[in-house]
């Protein structure tokens, strides 16, 4: 399956979606000029991946900032993973937040309340 590898900028996150190497990660800052256009290929990739996923999928979110427009698209990604989980796949979300960033920690808690999928909060030092 095709690998998605997007290098982050000061307003778009780094994205790695690599089925063979089992890396699924979104990190950095997310305030793209056009959120829908930015996230569309990622959502499409997940649709294709869902048809034949790995035996286990650990999806990492390691964001330091995202705007409200991005928050809806992040939920769309989580909902696709939730759907895969509901279909019997082994899915784990790892939500990384800088240890002093309560807002990012809380954002993770909120997403874990909304979607029904195994969700792990991981703090790290920036």
């Amino acid at each position, binding site marked *: 399956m095709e690998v998605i590898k997007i290098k982050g900028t000061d307003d778009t996150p780094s994205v790695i979606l690599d089925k063979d190497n089992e890396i699924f990660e979104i990190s950095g800052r997310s305030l793209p000029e056009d959120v*829908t256009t930015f996230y569309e290929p990622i959502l499409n990739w997940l649709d294709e991946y869902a048809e034949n996923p790995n035996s286990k999928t650990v999806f990492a979110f390691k964001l330091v900032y995202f705007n409200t427009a991005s928050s809806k698209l992040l939920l769309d990604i989580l909902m696709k993973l939730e759907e895969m989980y509901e279909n019997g796949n082994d899915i784990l979300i790892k939500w990384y937040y800088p240890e002093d960033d309560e807002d990012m920690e809380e954002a993770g808690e909120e997403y874990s309340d909304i979607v029904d999928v195994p969700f792990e909060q991981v703090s790290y030092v920036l």
Partner: protein
Amino acid sequence: MDKHNVKGFLEFVYDFYRSMKAHEITLVYEGEITHQITKAFTSLTESNMAKQEESNTVQKKVFHVMVECLQNISKHADTFGSDDYLFAGRGIFMVSKGSEDYHVTTGNVIENRKIEELTDMLEEINSLDKEGLKQLYKQQMRQGRLSDKGGAGLGFIDIARKTGNKLEYHFLPIDETSSFFLLSSSISRTL
């Protein structure tokens, strides 16, 4: 400009400068709000705050509020005339710093027919406590579809949550069809 007018204009500039100083305005802009402008203003304010050794928490909150305010204008400011595109997505944007707080203030033209809905939304947000805002945010994220302009309707809720303060707003009439909408958010420097 004749000589008299030049002098008057330059005096105005000095008054303007003094007003800015008096209100501790660190950034003021009037015009179209584009993505490039948003990036430039946030990075300028970030480096100013870093120089002043504001805490990471304060820096992040100011950044959040600035982005949401700027995007509100770029996506929701209305045009003056019927289809005068020159006035779309324009407004005034201001950052000021007091001894206790940062203030992010925006102003833009909106159609009068939208005032009621906007007021209801702002009043609902201002009536909620921390937990209530959290529930509203989650509900909006789940139900709210992105509008054709890409706004998620979450910006105001996010500003109220990040600042912990009420949204201060005001409408000033322009004519029968439009008004000027002002919104000011305060971020405490002692967070």
